[in-house]
């Protein structure tokens, strides 16, 4: 590759990236040891599957390793040095995360197992307590299954129904349609993603939260694809519930956050029962603990919370505005390059309306073949329905391919990606082949 680039006139996109200088980017990449490895084919890795999960910087690896090496013990229970140190670090992690999203209080920050677990918690507690037959949950057609299936399950339990908000043919949302749905359906809950994990489309979280409020709906925002990339301020957004996971923002797996307004959380019944979430237990029953313990039954993900806080500090240190600008520049290179190619369709709005996600399809080439061949060239992307089957059905596609950029990707990787797509197109273009006997070697 490279010597005979199919992009005849090599454009320099590099000037677009103003957020990080080349040497800053080098320093950032040094923080992510995994980025130095090769893929199975022996090619240098270009990791463009960040919307599925990101990599971890040394700050996160070290924070977790430090916990295990120096002070790990169970939290909130032991009267001994290690437990007290672990408890302090765990509760400090909560404060760090509360600051990261500007929560009004750290009691509003519930640690869960991930974004999926957070949404299920809301469905099982707030949902079961507040929804009944005929009530409506409004969600967008672009939601991840994590923000659909728990509502289908709630509908099965309570007889409420889930209605989907359509998307325009430009892959954006029309505010008048949103307003119309809210007015007509009077939903009890409006559950929507801040950023679509397939289209990259950003939703106007603040405006929709205000609209929902004016129609009496509670909002749940899936910020899984937002917190890794842009500053989030739950007080200014005025959302009722906001959820995200650790692993898409340089943090560990097995940890996520449920943010809820304090009053809502206090009014909600507890969910998982067990140790840690109770004030007192008798043979007759139990009394739940105060927030946030009420929703954290069992031994929590201690090292993971500490790792998540380290990730939040890492992102804040780099500056989320700069991260967003950097990713956006890379996304623009890929988006524009793909749009200029014959036989390639970008699935998503104009780059100006999205962050670091570019999904696409190539005429006559299956998404899995694209991903397989890109892997051969060292480029990791995602192919499939990306846990958005309703969206794909609406788009009449069984699968798409997605490149997603993050703070550590280089502009050169976006260019390499475009060159690789040209190679993929060439490889799978029909060229009048005839079937022959297999080559004996």
């Amino acid at each position, binding site marked *: 590759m490279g010597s005979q680039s199919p992009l005849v006139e090599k454009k320099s996109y590099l000037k677009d990236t103003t957020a990080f200088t080349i040497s800053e980017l080098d320093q950032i990449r040094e923080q992510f040891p995994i980025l130095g490895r090769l893929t*199975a084919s022996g090619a240098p890795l270009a990791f463009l599957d960040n919307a599925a999960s990101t990599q971890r910087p040394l700050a996160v690896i070290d924070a977790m390793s430090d916990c295990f090496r120096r002070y790990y013990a169970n939290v909130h229970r032991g009267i001994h040095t290690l437990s007290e140190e672990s408890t302090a670090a765990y509760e400090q992690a909560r404060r760090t995360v509360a600051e990261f999203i500007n929560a009004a209080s750290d009691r509003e920050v519930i640690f869960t197992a991930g974004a999926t677990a957070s949404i299920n918690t809301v469905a099982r507690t707030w949902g079961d307590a507040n929804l009944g037959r005929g009530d409506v949950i409004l969600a967008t057609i672009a939601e991840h299954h994590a923000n659909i299936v728990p509502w289908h399950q709630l509908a099965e339990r309570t007889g409420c129904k889930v209605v989907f908000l359509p998307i325009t043919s430009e892959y954006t949302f029309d505010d008048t349609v949103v307003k119309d749905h809210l007015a007509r359906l009077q939903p009890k809950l409006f559950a929507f993603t801040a950023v679509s994990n397939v289209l990259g489309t950003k939703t106007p979280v603040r405006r929709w939260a205000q609209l929902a409020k004016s129609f009496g709906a509670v909002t749940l925002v899936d910020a899984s694809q937002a917190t890794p990339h842009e500053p989030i301020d739950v007080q200014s957004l005025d959302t009722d519930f906001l959820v995200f996971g650790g692993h898409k923002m340089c943090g560990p797996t097995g940890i996520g956050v449920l943010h809820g307004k304090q009053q809502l959380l206090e009014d909600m019944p507890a969910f998982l029962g067990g140790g840690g979430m109770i004030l007192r237990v008798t043979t007759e029953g139990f009394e739940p603990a105060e927030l946030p313990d009420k929703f954290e039954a069992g031994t929590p993900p201690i090292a993971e919370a500490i790792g998540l806080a380290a990730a939040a500090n890492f992102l804040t240190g780099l500056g989320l505005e700069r991260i967003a600008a950097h990713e956006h520049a890379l996304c623009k290179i890929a988006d524009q390059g793909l749009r200029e190619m014959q036989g390639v369709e970008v699935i998503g709005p104009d780059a100006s309306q999205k962050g670091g996600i570019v999904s696409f399809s190539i005429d006559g080439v*299956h998404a899995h073949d694209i991903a*397989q*061949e890109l892997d051969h060239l060292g480029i990791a992307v995602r*192919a*499939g329905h990306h846990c958005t089957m309703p969206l794909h059905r609406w788009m009449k596609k069984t699968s798409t391919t997605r490149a997603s950029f993050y703070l550590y990707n280089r502009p050169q990787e976006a260019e390499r990606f475009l060159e690789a797509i040209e190679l993929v197109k060439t490889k*799978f273009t029909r060229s009048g082949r005839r*079937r022959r006997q*297999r080559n004996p070697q």
Partner: protein
Amino acid sequence: MSSEQDIYEEHVLDHYEDPYHRGDLEKATHSHEADNPLCGDVVHIDLRIDGDEKIQEAWFSGDGCVISQASASMLMETIEGKSLEDIRNFTAEEMLALFGPKLTPNRQKCCLLSWRVLQSAIHAPVDDLPPDNEDGPDVHFGGPSLSEET
């Protein structure tokens, strides 16, 4: 740069572009169709099996990735003239060997789709109701399906 075998070797691409017996078989005695729902690959197989329990003709149609379609073509080419006994004894491992390039567990599913359909088709006479086990023999290969990702 490559230390790994190219999955899309010439032989595979040849079968993809110039498949053996792609189409419908009018006089099919047996037929079956199945898909990999998560990636959308579909393969349909029509067979003409004679009184001696031999496959006289085999045709396929379908839609999907190179691996699913090229492997179906290779399979059709191989099975004509074979007995049902031969087909029943034809294992998943042999199907993967017939395809050639080594596949990761995720992609083995694509290659084994036509093999699954064939194993069901020999039990699915035309004009009969489809067999209970829509997905063919209960053989598990590879990891979780590629598309059920987050």
